């Protein structure tokens, strides 16, 4: 059979010369053309397909001969401008090219075209022969590789993105965008599972309507739910018909879908969904692998962010709890503290509002005095023990969650009306008494409460209990304090009165004092004056009588001597009495001071003895002293002690007619004892006490009457001013020994 039919209907002359074609050559061409894979066609100048080989016919149909090439190949109504045949016709040379052909039957074909001119005898191009070698696979493979490379690059970029940030939202937005592009999808979304609320949301999407972010379906619903449930990818060609279709997606035009779960370990946390909006967009294995790779990275990102949030959350909870603790310990006004507690309680679990219920144990009535973010009128509501959520919690002392409050049997209409949707309640315990409850509620943002929330609120409840207890104790203390204050006030007033009284008395005393001082001064002056007044005349009496007695006025006879002697002696006596009187007066008035000086006691005795020796001599008495060696000085007022000794010696002389007077000193570790011993008439023991008494007067008739005077009384006072003692030992007829002691250890400034 001939390949080129010289009788073909188009009148195309055979190539070369018929005459020169041997039969087997003609068969060769025919055989080759019929069997090769390549498609061969011949087109005339108008692009009619004049001849098509078997391969071409297989690709494009048996009836392509006679039709336009562009009609067949490209399904176009007119010629393509860059058709290889066109080029050949223009250039008249062979043309090689690679082309892609989109064909609805064959899809995309990549071909290597060789087009060559066919000349007639005149050398005019009459036709173009086109050989097309199918290189679709290679090309596709190449393209695949390129695309793969691009995808990997993109994937790497996504991974980098994820690893570099913790802004989960931002990451997931990018993830869905990249995934969409990498899989050549039309749109995509990341679905996340909200465990708390048991629903699936679609917060991140690419090329989907914005309202998708607000949508939610129950857990397990939708393709996202399906893929999460099974843990396997889901690919659908006809999304709208699928029983699990979600209207919002169908409405958005989703036709095909590829969904892969996002897993952390074996726990699904969401899904990555990629959509084709035309039925032709089918997802390939490569797409699936790409989607899974991205999903894996997204899951990591979610986990990281979750952990971060978890920590952040914990920190936030901790901070809130700290705030509560601070409030509680810094303030003692209970109402204020509990109000703060409601605020913190709602903050710490991210709720809308909170309230504290308190139980009046006596009445069994529950009130709601403290609330955060609730209408004021709710504070007037009262409940009963056992009724209502708070009532139940207080009764059972068990916390509870009511996530559907309006449906709860324990609901209180007032609270339902206020819009409370879910509530978590914990008891408020002090020791083993339940005094109320803390309730935290959500009013409609759809929040549900969990075990964790109970835990956190229990902590706050304990802190609040501490606050209540503190305030109660403080209240008690306050009460006691008030009582005390009341009493203190009373006492203070009493004291004030007393003080005023004593002020008054003080003033009186002051005035009296002033008067006394005046009197004292007058006394002083008086004493000084009297001393002077009394002594001055005596000076004359004593002086002149002595003067005449001594013969200064001329000779004096015996009688004159005697009389003058009497005058003189009495003058002296009077002087002595006056001195004693004045001394005693001074002592009595406390005007005598004892000036203590370290004085050797023996010197004092010697001085006294010397001054009295003459007196003793006049009566023919012997006056001696006797003291041991190594006497040490004693703190005393020398003048006064000497006065005492002189007084005692004087008395001894007076009451002794004959014999010896001995003045002695004895010193012990504690005191120094002076004694004056005489051989006089003695004193009967009955008088021992009396003689030191200033008012004592011996009965007349007793020889001892005259002349003791005030001396002993004064001596006693002087000795006592030294903190010493004075005493007498005597027997009538056997003489007397008068002794007095001075302590060794008197302070220098007495």
């Amino acid at each position, binding site marked *: 059979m001939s390949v080129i039919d010289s009788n073909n209907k188009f009148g195309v002359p055979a190539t070369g010369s018929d005459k020169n074609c041997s039969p087997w050559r003609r068969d060769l061409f025919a055989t080759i053309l019929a069997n090769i894979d390549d498609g061969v066609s011949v087109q005339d100048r108008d692009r009619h397909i004049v001849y098509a080989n078997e391969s071409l016919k297989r690709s494009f149909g048996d009836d392509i001969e006679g039709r336009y090439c562009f009609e067949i190949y490209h399904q176009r109504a007119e010629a393509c401008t860059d058709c290889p045949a066109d080029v050949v016709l223009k250039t008249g040379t062979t043309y090689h090219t690679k082309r892609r052909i989109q064909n609805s039957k064959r899809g995309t074909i990549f071909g290597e075209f060789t087009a060559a001119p066919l000349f007639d005898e005149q050398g005019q191009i009459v036709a173009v022969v086109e050989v097309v070698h199918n290189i679709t696979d290679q090309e596709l493979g190449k393209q695949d590789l390129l695309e793969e490379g691009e995808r990997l690059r993109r994937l790497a970029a996504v991974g980098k993105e994820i690893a570099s940030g913790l802004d989960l939202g931002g990451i997931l937005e990018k993830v869905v965008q990249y995934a969409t592009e990498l899989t050549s999808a039309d749109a995509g979304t990341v679905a996340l599972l909200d465990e708390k609320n048991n629903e699936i949301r679609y917060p991140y999407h690419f090329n989907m309507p914005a309202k998708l972010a607000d949508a939610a379906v129950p857990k397990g619903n939708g393709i996202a739910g399906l893929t999460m449930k099974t843990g396997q990818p889901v690919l659908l060609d006809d999304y709208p018909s699928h029983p699990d279709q979600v209207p919002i997606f169908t409405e958005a035009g989703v036709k095909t879908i590829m969904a892969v779960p996002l897993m952390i370990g074996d726990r699904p946390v969401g899904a990555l969904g990629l959509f084709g909006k035309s039925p032709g967009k089918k997802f390939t294995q490569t797409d699936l692998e790409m989607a899974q790779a991205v999903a894996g990275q997204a899951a990591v990102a979610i986990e990281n962010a979750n952990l971060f949030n978890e920590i952040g959350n914990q920190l936030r909870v901790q901070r809130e709890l700290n705030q509560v603790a601070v409030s509680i310990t810094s303030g003692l006004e209970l109402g204020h503290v509990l109000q703060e507690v409601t605020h913190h309680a709602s903050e710490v679990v991210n709720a809308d509002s909170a309230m504290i219920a308190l139980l009046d144990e006596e009445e069994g009535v529950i009130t709601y005095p403290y609330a955060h973010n609730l209408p004021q009128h709710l504070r007037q509501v009262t409940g009963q023990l056992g009724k209502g959520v708070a009532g139940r919690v207080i009764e059972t002392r068990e916390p509870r969650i009511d996530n559907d409050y309006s449906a709860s049997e324990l609901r209180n209409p007032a609270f339902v009306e206020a819009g409370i949707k879910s509530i978590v309640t914990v008891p408020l315990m002090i020791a083993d008494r339940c005094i109320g409850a803390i309730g935290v509620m959500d009013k409609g943002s759809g929040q549900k409460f969990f075990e964790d929330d109970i835990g956190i609120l229990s902590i706050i409840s304990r802190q609040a209990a501490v606050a209540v207890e503190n305030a109660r104790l403080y209240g008690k203390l306050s009460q006691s304090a008030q009582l005390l204050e009341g009493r203190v006030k009373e006492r203070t007033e009493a004291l004030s009165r007393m003080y005023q009284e004593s002020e008054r008395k003080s003033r009186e005393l002051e005035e009296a004092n002033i008067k006394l001082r005046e009197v004292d001064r007058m006394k002083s002056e008086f004493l000084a004056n009297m001393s*002077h007044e009394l*002594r*001055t005349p005596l*000076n*004359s009496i004593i*002086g*002149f009588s*002595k003067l005449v007695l001594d013969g200064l006025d001329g000779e004096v006879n015996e009688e004159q001597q005697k009389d003058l002697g009497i005058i003189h002696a009495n003058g002296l006596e009077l*002087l002595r009495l006056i001195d004693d009187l004045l001394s005693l007066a001074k002592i009595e008035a406390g005007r005598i001071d004892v*000036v203590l000086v370290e004085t050797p006691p023996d010197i004092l005795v010697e001085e006294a003895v010397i001054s009295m020796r003459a007196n003793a001599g006049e009566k023919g008495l012997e006056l001696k002293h006797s003291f041991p060696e190594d006497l040490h000085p004693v703190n005393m007022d020398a003048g006064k002690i000497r006065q005492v000794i002189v007084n005692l010696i004087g008395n001894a002389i007076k009451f002794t007619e004959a014999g010896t007077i001995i003045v002695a000193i004895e010193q012990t570790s504690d005191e120094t004892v002076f004694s004056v011993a005489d051989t006089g008439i003695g004193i009967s023991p009955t008088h021992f006490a009396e003689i030191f008494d200033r008012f004592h007067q011996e009965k007349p008739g007793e020889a001892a009457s005259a002349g003791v005077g005030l001396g002993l009384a004064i001596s006693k006072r002087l000795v006592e001013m030294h903190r010493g003692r004075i005493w007498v030992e005597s027997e009538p007829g056997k003489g007397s020994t008068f002794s007095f002691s001075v302590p060794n250890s008197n302070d220098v400034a007495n």
Partner: protein
Amino acid sequence: MGETEKKVILVVDDNDDVRRLVKKVLEMSGYKVLEAPDGEQALAIIDSVVPDLVLMDIRLPGPYDGLETTRRLREDARLQRVPVVALSASVLEPDRQRALTVGCNGFICKPIDIAELPKLVETYIKRGAATPR
């Protein structure tokens, strides 16, 4: 003993009896005795005659008492060495001390022991105007 060789004692006391007593006693002992009833007159006498001893009663009438008179006396350089013995009816120690502070060399209590007086006078004149204790 000639008049000019006698030691001169000035006795200053407002009491006539005291002056009389002292004069009699001391003249008997061989002293020349001058008298003054108050401080002013005492100083007037001292102006013309520097005594060998002054017996000065503490209590004197007039603008200045015995202590003041003694003080003024001591201000005079000529009179630094003149012994002044205070006479007083007071037995109070402070008075004694004050006298000594002011410049007196000694202190005699009244009533005066006329037996002791001449000896004391002699002692004080002999001592001269020793520094007061």
